[in-house]
């Protein structure tokens, strides 16, 4: 079938699943005319681990560690989202201090995710050095989070009704020192990368997505905000302590690679603001709700919860029959929808642009495949 559609001037290129710039095992089937792309088909499923099915075969608590393995860069956010979803279903009240701690950790996680994206994206564009700078910054966050959560990448810190343990002094001192350090670094990145002429040439006007197109393909997160739609679940469907905090939703207008880059960089600054505010008014008290049952058994019914993960709208849907194990577990992960737009915007661009666009969408493959 492929052979039939092949003209003499075009050929197929399998970009991935083993390729340095597909960030894992993404497979793009490209039909090329020289270097120009005629067709693109994203093929997924290479790292499918049946997380949803696992969720249907174990208790709610047993499934908790799985959540951070889906999006390994935003593990804490997924933890947080899952706990919020189950707490909402069971009607568990979370103590004030725990809510603050969760938010601080989730925002730090968001920054580390964006930092890694920043480094990897610049590496896709051929600049190797920012990668190591970003990892240096990220290392600080991992060390800080490691202090309190005990792990560096796949966290299982949140619990139903609170968090595992209280913040310690090392965490507070580390965060206090980290915030000004990252602000200074972000300034450096602005002068070194954001204003770089080659970078601007590679990203401005490349992979433009209009607001309508973004809505049609269910783009969310920074990718949607780069198109000029100020849609952020932390404001649209507020949860946790976000209504009490002051922060802006950075948006851009053009919806090209540069805007997606800019929105993420601006988001890091807003996340820093959130961390600063939340730590500033951290209340005293317990970090775990009293009287959480040993076996979580939400009343029969179906439940849905939306969360703003670093990559966009994370939807958790589960059906309970009142037992210890959910009947159905479904996760709507942002990268899956974000990725699908590639087949729409890639045709007509060059191979080099493919890498620039794919990188700017910021996909995490295990989260697509689950």
């Amino acid at each position, binding site marked *: 079938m492929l052979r039939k559609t092949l003209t003499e001037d075009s050929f197929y290129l399998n970009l991935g699943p083993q390729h340095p710039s597909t960030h894992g095992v993404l497979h793009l089937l490209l039909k090329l005319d020289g270097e120009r792309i005629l067709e693109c088909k994203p093929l997924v499923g290479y790292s499918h681990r049946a997380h949803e099915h696992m969720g249907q075969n174990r208790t709610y608590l047993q499934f908790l560690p799985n959540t951070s393995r889906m999006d390994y860069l935003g593990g804490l956010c997924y933890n947080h989202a899952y706990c919020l979803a189950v707490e909402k279903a069971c009607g568990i009240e979370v103590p004030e201090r725990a809510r603050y701690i969760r938010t601080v950790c989730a925002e730090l996680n968001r920054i580390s995710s964006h930092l890694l994206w920043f480094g990897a994206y610049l590496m896709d564009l*051929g600049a190797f050095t920012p990668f*190591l700078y970003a990892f240096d910054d990220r290392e600080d966050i991992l060390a800080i989070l490691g202090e309190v959560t005990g792990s560096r990448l796949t966290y299982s810190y949140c619990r139903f009704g609170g968090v595992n343990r209280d913040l310690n002094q090392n965490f507070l001192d580390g965060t206090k020192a980290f915030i000004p350090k990252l602000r200074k670094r972000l300034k450096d990145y602005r002068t070194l990368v954001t204003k770089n002429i080659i970078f601007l040439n590679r990203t401005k006007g490349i992979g433009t997505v209009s607001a309508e197109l973004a809505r049609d393909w269910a783009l969310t997160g920074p990718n949607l905000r780069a198109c000029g739609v100020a849609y952020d679940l932390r404001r649209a469907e507020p949860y946790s302590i976000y209504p009490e905090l002051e922060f802006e939703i950075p948006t851009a207008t053009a919806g090209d690679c540069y805007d997606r880059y800019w929105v993420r960089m601006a988001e890091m600054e807003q996340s820093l603001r959130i961390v600063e505010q939340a730590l500033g008014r951290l209340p005293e008290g317990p970090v775990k709700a009293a009287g959480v049952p040993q076996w979580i058994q939400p009343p029969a019914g179906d439940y849905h919860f939306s969360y703003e993960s670093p990559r966009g709208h994370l939807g958790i849907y589960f059906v309970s029959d009142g037992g210890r194990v959910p009947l159905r577990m479904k996760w709507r992960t942002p990268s899956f929808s974000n990725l699908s737009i590639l087949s729409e915007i890639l045709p007509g661009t060059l191979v080099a642009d493919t890498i620039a666009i794919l990188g700017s969408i910021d996909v995490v493959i295990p989260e697509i495949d689950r």
Partner: protein
Amino acid sequence: MSDGILVDLRVIWEALVRFFGLEALVLVIGLVVILAWVQVNALFLVWLERKVAGHIQLRIGPKEVGPFGVLQTIVDGIKLLGKELITPQPVSWLLFILSPIMVFTPVLVAFVVLPFGPHLIIRDINVGLMLIFAFGGINVLSILMGGWASNNKYALLGAIRSVAQNVAYEIPLLLSAMSVVVMSGTLSMQGIVEAQEGVWFIFYQPVAGLLYLIGATAETNRAPFDIPEAESELVAGFHTEYSGMRFGLFFLAEYTNMFIVAAVATTLFFGGWRGPFLPGPWWFLIKVYILIFGVMWVRWTFPRLRFDQLMNFAWKYMIPIALLNLLVTALVMKLVR
């Protein structure tokens, strides 16, 4: 005892000179020295690159093997030698095997005419500059051969890019070198250095110098012009299918090429071996390595250009400017003389 050996050596030397002629002997010895020099130079440059990259990137680079890690590249070279030479089944094997040899051999020829010092030159040919550029052109051919013969789509794309890029960038390179030739009135490398008595040509020809450096970076496929091997797009470009010492030869050729373009730049624009206090060869090497350091600095700081932007840059800006520069130079020289 030692006196006896010296006398014996002199006798042998004189016999050899009588038999082969001095010119031929110098050439043979020169080639042996070049081969040794090329290896040592590449080892040093690879180490330097890793150190420079390391310090730019908040790391320290290699430090375990030898003092400051200088022996690291030797260890890597031994590793490359020990690796299996894999020839994939569907390749066109003759071209596939020939390509790494062909990319490396012409590189050596350029060393014959490089003036390391007032007397340290193997042969001062009256068309020395032409010779370097002519043999530099073979580079493209071997890359195309390797990319085509590999029977790999990434390698083919890399080879196509490489040919287009080299054709585009050789023109401003030659034109900017021509401006210097017009000023000095000779194609001999030693003659060009001699013509820079007092003032370096970079002060007369700043535009040509800049164009040459940009063109040379593109010619050696260095970032931000490393489009033929752009690893985030084309995996490894034209040498995707090469392994072991075949890859090593490509690698060696790249670093030797870097040395050559820097050496030519030194000769054309920075007064060659001229300089106070130190003897000529020292000045020559210092200037060359400073230029190479600059190229490395650029590589680890800038993102990669896109292919069409690169071509636009060459055809729309560099070539017209180089042509104009050459015309103005010729006109001024005509009026002055």
